[in-house]
């Protein structure tokens, strides 16, 4: 179902980048389908898609090694797919089915896939950051060459949990990478209204943490920066703050009328900042090529909806399971 892992980590062939393109497109089509199904009234819960941010999910996750773990956010579909959860399992979760990656207990904001190293999406902004420091501490304790990676947004850098988690990670020199997806908005609140600095990588100065800036619409750049950051962390040199500039090309949540930003601004951003457009141009993909890939991923996405709909509804009493170990 998923394309093969990039063979030679660190260098990227054209074939690798095509794989990236395919995965990014899969995520895009998956999320568009989620939007469609939500509007059709089929999906319960609160849903946030990351359309425009696919290059971050794919660039970072492809750079990971076996054994590395991630923690995600309310905007988790892309990270989850990129970390290896199948579209079927993800879609089944959104439909609240037992076959879902959280067996119907989690939903879109609580996607887990522990076997594949996904320690969970978190609906509390910043909520997963301390556990990332903690997972990295466990790896350090055990001398395992693993890295813990947290995704979070620009808005999350305002919360105390962020501060305490990065401070502690740096102090203890644990193998963690903190991936800040700066999409310039926290719900309806623009960056300038929630953050008193322009360069978000300055946050890391308060901890003396290595900071790396990267263009999040360029998957190759994200991949390479991630490789470096991961190597740094893995080799015991301490955690890294990866400041990724990116764009949310849609509303905060599905159904968001976006009264807080102008249609023109949004239109322009969509036209200039789509990571799929960028990669397509770089790879010089023909319309035919794109169409073929698109057909392929669309099929996968459609199949996932089929799978999900045919999935098993939990029994009401199942709600009383899984509370205690």
């Amino acid at each position: 179902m998923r394309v093969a892992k990039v063979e030679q980590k660190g260098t990227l062939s054209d074939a690798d980048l095509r794989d990236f393109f395919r995965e990014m497109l899969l995520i895009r089509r998956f999320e568009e389908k989620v939007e469609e199904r939500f509007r059709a009234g089929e999906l319960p819960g609160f849903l946030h898609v990351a359309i425009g941010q696919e290059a971050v999910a794919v660039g970072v996750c492809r750079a990971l090694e076996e054994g590395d773990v991630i923690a995600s956010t309310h905007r988790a579909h892309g990270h989850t797919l990129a970390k290896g959860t199948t579209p079927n399992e993800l879609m089944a979760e959104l439909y609240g089915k037992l076959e879902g990656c959280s067996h119907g207990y989690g939903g879109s904001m609580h996607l887990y896939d522990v076997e594949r190293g996904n320690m969970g999406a978190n609906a509390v902004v910043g909520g997963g950051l301390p556990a990332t420091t903690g997972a990295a501490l466990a790896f350090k304790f055990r001398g395992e060459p693993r890295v813990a990676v947290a995704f979070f947004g620009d808005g999350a850098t305002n919360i105390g949990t962020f501060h305490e988690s990065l401070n502690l990670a740096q102090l203890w020199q644990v193998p963690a990478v903190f991936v800040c997806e700066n999409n310039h908005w926290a719900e309806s609140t623009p960056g300038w209204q929630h953050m008193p600095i322009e360069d978000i990588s300055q946050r890391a100065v308060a901890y003396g943490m290595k900071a790396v800036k990267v263009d999040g619409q360029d998957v190759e750049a994200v991949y390479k920066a991630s490789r470096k950051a991961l190597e740094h962390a893995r080799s015991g040199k301490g955690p890294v703050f990866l400041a990724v500039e990116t764009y949310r090309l849609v509303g905060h949540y599905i159904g968001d009328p976006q009264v807080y930003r102008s249609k023109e601004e949004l239109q322009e951003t969509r036209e200039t900042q789509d990571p799929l457009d960028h990669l397509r141009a770089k790879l010089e993909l023909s319309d035919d090529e794109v169409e073929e890939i698109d057909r392929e991923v669309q099929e996968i996405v459609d199949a996932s909806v089929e799978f999900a709909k045919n999935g098993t509804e939990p029994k009401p009493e199942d709600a009383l399971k899984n509370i205690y170990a």
Partner: protein
Amino acid sequence: MPELSYREAVRDALSRAMREDDDVFIMGEDIAEMGGSMGVTQGMLDEFGPERVRNTPISEMALAGTAIGAAMQGMRPVAEIMYEDFLTLATEQIVNQAAKHRYMSGGQLSVPVTFRTQGGAGWSPGAQHAQQLEAWFVHIPGLKVVFASTPSDVRGLLWSSIYDDNPVVFFEHRTLYGLKEDVPDELEPIPLGQARVHREGDDVTVIATGRLVHEALSAAQEAEGEGISVEVVDPRTLQPLDEETLVDSVKKTSRCVVAHEAVTRMGFGAEVASVIQYSAFDWLDAPIERVGAKFAPLPFAPVMEEFVVPHANDVLAAIRRTVGRNGN
């Protein structure tokens, strides 16, 4: 008599207070352009401007604590915590600071701040966006705690909370925002600490809060068809608690059901049941029934979610159980 939804009633109380009093302002995440995640403050930015309708960063501690500091200087801030679950980030400020400054200073200070928040199951938001945590705050001397269930109540109680000189934690229920009611043109403040008898009855008293008030009312109607006369009382203010009204009602009916959406164990119903069994012991003909969420986090899948939280039929079952008991 205009018709207002619960959402509009909250907005009306906020807007009137802000019109009349420069010391009142509101702050919270995405309350400005977006009008809050539940649309409660929609339009207020236009009327009052960004200084008094303040979008905050995602910083629940500072959001709560800044409101506390401004209140200590005599302002009357209303701070919105977007979801009750995020109160967990602000408990230090609410519990150790707001609740205690007056006391620790030996009466020098007052902290007239209101913390509005909302929660509730029913939309499958999952375990981190739907908890009902009002019981925690009832345990903390120095705080007042309000949980309103109708448009007129929420308007009158919010007004009183804003003008109360103490910190108030003010709970709204997500599924009630659309509920409509005719309300008087004039805002009638409702004193904190007064329960409301929604419906009189003789056989059993149901004491309910928030969404469960409405579930209790439908259960009562159903029960009536079965020949059971149910009194439904909403304490509205959980702290201070109008024990007298609750106890008097149970002394009249001799049977009691307590109902809320929060987890039953250690929920607000535990306090009510304890008070009632103590003060109406000789009147009780049956054990006090507690109705609340089953002991589980909120699951995502709708069938499970619905199973966990209580509904009218759960209240009805409890009514039947208590009436089915022989009296003493």
